């Protein structure tokens, strides 16, 4: 399973902080995003944001980066700390 986390506005709009996704047929962060966006219209709208960022195992990553079983993948908006 892939452990998927959501933060900030993404978490709030989706109404969930985390879900488990079977890693079958998912090879990249982009494919995981597309899989999640296929859940329903709301998820599609939130996850289609061109500002959405992805971290794989707590490291900022590119959409074409590989994901596999046991990974932690987080989706979130641009950061605003400090």
């Amino acid at each position, binding site marked *: 399973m892939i452990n998927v986390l959501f933060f*900030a506005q993404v978490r709030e709009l989706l109404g969930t902080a985390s879900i488990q996704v079977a890693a079958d047929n998912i090879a990249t962060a982009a494919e995981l995003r597309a899989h999640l966006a296929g859940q329903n219209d709301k998820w599609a709208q939130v996850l289609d944001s061109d500002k959405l960022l992805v971290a794989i195992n707590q490291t900022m990553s590119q959409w074409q980066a590989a994901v596999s079983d046991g990974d932690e993948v987080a989706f979130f908006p641009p950061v605003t700390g400090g």
Partner: protein
Amino acid sequence: MQADRIIVQSEDFHVPAEYQQIAGDNGDGAVVTFVGKVRDFNDGSAVTDLTLEHYPGMTEAVLHKIVAEARERWPLNFVTIIHRVGTMHLGEQIVFIGVSSAHRKAAFAACEFLIDFLKTKAPFWKLEASPDGAHWVEARDSDEQAAQAWNNGDS
């Protein structure tokens, strides 16, 4: 070179105590500190409270990486970063950055570098509460440009 002091906590911090932590080495001629606070207006709307969310684990890892980058650029001795999470009221402290070095130029530059990179790399998000309701703060292009400038040889 001292161990980095990197803390994410909900409690407030005490600036004099943090200053003492990084000011104790007589080989350092310079100590520079920065404190970020909750201010009253952002993008024209009144702010009453700020709630900081973060990504536990990744936040600390990113902050350690940013400090390591600063240490590659400048000769630093003590480095402290404290970032608060949870809800803070108007006027409260959000973040402390303190660095010590033999000379002031390194200390000033490293402190500014650290806050510029923290703002654009570390996974924190601000939710502002105002009389009109709560809204998530948008990332600013000017913050991204400030961080980029360190990689363009502008500094």
